[in-house]
């Protein structure tokens, strides 16, 4: 009966369907980066990398890596015709001013009111928030790519985040390995479920408030 859940590539593929022609998009590190591989035909988007680039291109061919040309994940990349470099102040200026249409990022936890936590595990991890707090504070449209549960099988879609917050009431959508969830006033609303995943499983694995859309449907690939 199909898959039991989406793999990372499929999560990225599903998120890519949210891209609209003409969008400026910031893709975070991890699964979000994979979204660039699934941009639909005929949809032209411009990728913003918050270290100072609009118009991020693919990875370079071997031997053509340039240490002066990296993305926010510190990966070697390339430019495209029409790319532009700028400094970090302007980069976050355009983010804060709402010029970036869509931000995709990972999360450790999300809450049913739109809160997100993805930068700190007290006493364990002290890497820092990087640009995530700026992005979630300012972007109009924030999609979270994440696993629905942690390794212990506990829900990461919560009534309230337990970890220190990255941003409050900011995320608009979650795409997990189990389905797609809009963040609404009534909490998470399941609008699609992964092939082979049941609504019952989603209900069981979602700790936050959850509603099921009337027209909920199975995701197709």
């Amino acid at each position: 009966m199909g898959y039991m859940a989406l793999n990372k590539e499929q999560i990225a593929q599903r998120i890519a369907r949210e891209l609209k022609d003409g969008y400026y998009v910031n893709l975070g590190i991890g699964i979000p980066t994979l979204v660039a591989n699934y941009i639909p035909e005929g949809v032209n988007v411009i990728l913003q990398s918050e270290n100072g680039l609009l118009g991020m291109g693919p990875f370079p061919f071997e031997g053509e890596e340039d240490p002066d040309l990296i993305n926010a994940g510190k990966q070697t990349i390339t430019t495209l015709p029409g790319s532009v470099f700028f400094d970090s102040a302007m980069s976050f200026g355009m983010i804060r001013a709402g010029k970036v249409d869509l931000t995709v990022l990972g999360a450790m936890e999300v809450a049913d009111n739109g809160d997100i936590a993805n930068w700190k595990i007290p006493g364990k991890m002290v890497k820092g928030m990087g640009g995530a707090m700026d992005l979630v504070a300012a972007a109009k449209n924030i999609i979270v790519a994440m696993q629905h549960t942690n390794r212990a099988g506990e829900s990461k879609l919560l009534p309230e985040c337990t970890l220190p917050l990255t941003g409050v009431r900011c995320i608009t959508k979650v795409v997990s390995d189990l389905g797609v969830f809009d963040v609404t006033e009534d909490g998470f609303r399941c609008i699609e479920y992964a092939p082979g995943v049941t609504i019952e499983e989603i209900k069981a694995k979602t700790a936050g408030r959850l509603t099921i859309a009337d027209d909920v449907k199975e995701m197709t690939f």
Partner: protein
Amino acid sequence: MNKVVANADEAIKDIESGMTLMLGGFGLCGIPENCIAALVRKGVNNLTCISNNAGVDDFGIGLMLQQKQVKKMISSYVGENAEFERQLLSGELEVDLVPQGTLATRCMAAGYGMPAVYLLAGVGTEVAEGKEVRNFNGKDYLLEEAFDADFAIVKAWKGDRLGNLIYKDTARNFNPMMAMAGKITIAEVEELVEPGELDPNYVHTPGIYVHRIFQGSNYEKRIEQRTVRPRTPKGA
């Protein structure tokens, strides 16, 4: 007017222990490698370093951490650095984690003579603790103060005797704002040119902000994440 000094050691000669430094770069991209090496040689310590990242274990600011020269880091992201984490968890090192855009803008504010600005990032999070929150047009913002650094140390691609600088690609990052923000600004460049060689329309940092400049040497420009794609097979 000649701002040229011989080398990194001369450029940093009056940096003293206990001072606050801004250091340009994002990850290991666009970092002032020569000046960092000179700071390690000079052995100043108790430094407060404002820099987006803290280098890796054996490169960038990581070299200063190894020598325990840093008292406090003000950064947005300090992963990729085990020694950093060790010193932090052991209490040897203080760290002030600042959202990346806020970090950039607090540098910019200093360079633009703005003592404080209101910014969105971190509202409702622990970053907001102790900070003034103020509502404008229905949205809450945090009051964020300009940084105050004794020296800013930046790395540029080309520069001239008057201190005019241009940066290459994403090696620009924090360098221009920090160049504007230092009480004294030191620029190391890959290529030192004569005034008139840089097109006046395309200078990123006007020389008025730069006090000392020198042509660096032996740039390693280490890559943190070498990512490539396969070449299409030839003649396939």
